[in-house]
């Protein structure tokens, strides 16, 4: 599930920023219509994460039953280790997002265009989500 969230965040952000940055050269920043793509990107992350998680759950459940490596029941289980690793990842993500928020806050004080503020906010959410996922994956793999 952590993988799904990481991959979805990365892909959607990559598509979004390539679309938006592609428009940077053509029109003045203040006229770039980033609102629609941004809302679509946020919606896409939510929908794709849900769909991906369900697909992943079904996939791992089926493969576990076929290979006999655990059971479908075991896959859906969430124990204390999952909770602890989840908390650690979310905490680190929170710090990263906070730093990003400070950056966005600075942009408002400096009266940058909405375009930059909105995209800085979005970028910090994306980076926070990726760092959070990375911390969880490392914790799962190497122990903590």
């Amino acid at each position, binding site marked *: 599930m952590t993988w799904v969230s990481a991959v979805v965040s990365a892909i959607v952000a990559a598509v979004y920023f390539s679309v938006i940055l592609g428009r940077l050269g053509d029109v003045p920043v203040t006229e770039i219509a980033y609102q629609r793509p941004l809302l679509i990107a946020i919606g896409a992350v939510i929908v794709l994460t849900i769909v991906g998680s369900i697909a992943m759950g079904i996939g791992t459940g089926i493969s576990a039953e076929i290979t006999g490596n655990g059971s479908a029941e075991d896959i859906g*289980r969430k124990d204390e280790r999952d909770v602890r690793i989840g908390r650690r990842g979310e905490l680190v993500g929170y710090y990263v997002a906070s730093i990003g928020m400070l950056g966005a806050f600075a942009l408002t004080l400096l009266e940058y265009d909405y375009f930059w503020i909105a995209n800085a906010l979005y970028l910090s959410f994306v980076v926070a989500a990726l760092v959070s996922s990375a911390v969880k994956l490392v914790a799962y793999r190497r122990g*903590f």
Partner: protein
Amino acid sequence: MVRPTKVTNRIRALRFAADEMTQAELADRIGVTRQTVIAVEQGRYSPSRQMAFLIARVFGVPLDEVFQYPEEAS
């Protein structure tokens, strides 16, 4: 980042003594994932006291027959 717990355990030996119980079976008995049993067995995860007691109960042994905390060789 690797911070293996100093606590050692005999879960593997106890599983084999208990009619070669699988990791999956132990996981089912104490209600955790198989990955967690593996992590505990390899010393990559230090379980909560509750989980430690549950493991000991499955094998019907006192806690310190499952987990050991060796004296530091100084």
